[in-house]
């Protein structure tokens, strides 16, 4: 059914359609609307779930861990400082091979304190073993949650998934979405059927420690299966298209990339801005394409090589910075393209930090500076605010 709703409401309804048995979360802006909507859905009996109102994000993740270990589908949502507080548990969940979906609302990291959007928080967890999917708009984030459970619970994967959506830009914006019916989602996503669960009828030990003689093999298996999960992400995107008739890309989504001289790479809502801007630049003769990176973990190295190798130039729009190095995404894309034939230069343009709007003016600036050969730079800086160094 098509309806005009807030992004957070879209996520809450989509999560409800996935029938989680346990929901646990701690309120933090701008994740709050999601968990408020879910609380209401539970209070009204529209979702048959236990909602555990914990005292911290650390405990929210821990409650989800326990619930999945007990054989029940679970859900949480958080952002920024909350995600960092969860981080210890998130590594643990991945290592224990427990399938789980958490919405990672993207927000800047303190200090200075900022409740506004960038992607520093979820990128800090890139090495944790969690799959990471980034959504461009409300429809995509809605669909992505349904897909994420299917990917995460697949026996070939058994790794948790973080569905990332830009704070405020997506969580607090009203858009028209096509909300699937319960019957449609039930047909696509069967009830959670765990390989293992903590049951007195068939006891097992979960979370034993490993010595140097076997730790490395367990970590290798996580790495092996995370890489193999890329095929499952693609498969589920196709299955989803067949069931719901919607396609927004699988691991990447190219937009006007075929003849593009300059390809912009980005994740999340800024991709929409980039597409509009690219259209305008094309009217003026600039051959600009946009590559949406939809699946950041597993990292789609082959697909990025294929999509980018023909371009003259690649500009990576970074909504985060690896302080003391530079771009996070661009470093990985440079590594992916290294040694390939016809490797384009890959520019890292950091912008949109702490909720700074990414305007067409900033994108124009990026284009000029990249064309002028600048490799790593902040775009849209207010020079007048900088202290003398």
């Amino acid at each position, binding site marked *: 059914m098509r309806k005009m709703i807030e992004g957070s409401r879209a996520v809450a309804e989509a999560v409800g359609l996935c029938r989680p*048995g*346990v929901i*646990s979360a701690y309120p933090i802006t701008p994740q709050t609307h999601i968990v408020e909507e879910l609380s209401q859905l539970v209070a009204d009996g529209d979702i*048959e*779930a*236990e909602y*555990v*109102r*914990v*005292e*911290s994000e*650390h*405990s929210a993740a*821990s*409650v*989800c*861990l*326990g*619930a*999945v*270990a*007990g*054989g*029940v589908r*679970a859900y949480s949502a958080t952002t920024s400082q909350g995600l960092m507080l969860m981080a*210890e*548990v998130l590594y*643990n969940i991945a290592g*224990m091979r427990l399938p789980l979906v958490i919405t990672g609302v993207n927000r800047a990291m303190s200090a200075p304190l900022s409740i506004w959007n960038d992607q520093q928080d979820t990128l800090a967890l890139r090495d944790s073993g969690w799959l990471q999917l980034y959504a461009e708009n409300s429809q995509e984030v809605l669909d992505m949650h349904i897909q994420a459970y299917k990917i995460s619970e697949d026996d070939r994967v058994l790794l948790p998934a973080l569905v990332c959506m830009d704070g405020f830009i997506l969580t607090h914006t009203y858009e028209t979405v096509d909300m699937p019916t319960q019957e449609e989602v039930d047909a696509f996503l069967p009830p959670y059927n765990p390989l293992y669960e*903590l*049951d*007195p009828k068939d*006891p*097992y*030990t*979960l*979370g*034993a*420690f*490993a*010595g140097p003689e*076997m730790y490395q093999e367990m970590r290798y298996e996580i790495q092996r299966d995370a890489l193999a999960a890329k095929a499952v992400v693609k498969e589920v995107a196709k299955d989803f298209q067949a069931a719901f008739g919607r396609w927004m890309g699988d691991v990447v989504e190219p937009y006007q990339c075929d003849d593009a001289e300059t390809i912009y790479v980005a994740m999340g809502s800024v991709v929409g801005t980039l597409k509009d801007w690219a259209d305008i630049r094309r009217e003026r003769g600039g051959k600009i394409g946009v590559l949406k990176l939809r699946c950041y973990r597993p990292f789609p190295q082959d697909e990025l090589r294929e999509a980018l190798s023909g371009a003259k130039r690649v500009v990576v729009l970074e909504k985060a910075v690896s302080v003391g190095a530079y771009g996070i995404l661009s470093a990985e894309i440079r590594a992916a393209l290294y040694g390939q034939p016809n490797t384009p230069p890959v520019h890292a343009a950091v912008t949109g930090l702490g909720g700074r709007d990414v305007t067409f003016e900033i994108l124009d600036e990026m284009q000029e500076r990249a064309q002028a050969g600048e490799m790593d730079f902040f775009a849209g800086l207010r020079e007048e605010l900088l202290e003398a160094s």
Partner: protein
Amino acid sequence: MPATKEFTYELERGFLPGHRACAGCGQATAVRLVMEVAGPNVVVTNATGCLEVFSTPHPESAWGVPWVHSLFENASAVAAGLEAALKHKGKLDEIRVLAFGGDGATLDIGFGPLSGVLERGHDVAYFCMDNEAYMNTGVQRSGSTPFGAATTTSPAGRRSFGEDRPKKDLPAIAAAHGIPYVATASMSIVADLRRKTKKALDTRGPKYVQIHVPCPPGWGYDEKDTVDIGRMAVDCGLYPLVEWENGEVVRVRKIKPIPVEEYLKPQRRFRHLFRSDAGKEQIAKIQELAQANIEKYGLAD
């Protein structure tokens, strides 16, 4: 085949022999006693610590019941997740959720999560194994380390008599949550521990049981003396055995008080107190702490 019968019995017991605990470990005995009472229809969460490490070096496990270890501070929250899962599946009437944590995991790093679990009313029985320091990492001071005890981070020295603060009173804090049942127990007083475990598992809602478990390497006494040391802690008044229901004290275990010196003297962690007159003043302060317990709970009445 007798071997098969034996094996079945052990499985039913929940916590199996063959683990790697130190000789004379009070905690290992306490856990075995709790699990004997708890029976097979349980799921167990375990904080990081001695118990977790000595019972589950992968691929070995000493647990005959479903068991999960996640992290140091979240055994209570993981237990809450399991409880919620069982509730969702409609199995909470047949399966009990138990959590085990040491005093560091419980009083210090896991204090917030534990308080959350107690406050929210989860049907979880939390057992704190109190050996009064971070034993797994090498006897560092915790919030449960008693006044006067030397640890590796609260050592006795020219300007120090060891730990300078009394134990954090977590049982009273747990009781202040108004939960149905809180108890202190000792691994040395077996019938009492069994009864309190049964009471905890027969009660619905959050339960907190703190069990005093002497530790030979951490406290520095002869391994064969674990039971005696534990008993003396109770008998001198330093470890009062108390039960609370809904926030009120309902029962205490009476004692005929012995001087605290009898309990302190055999332990290396207190030996610096016996070496000077100033140390004896510290012992007098410890006697005052015991006396305060005796009066507060009417232990000797």
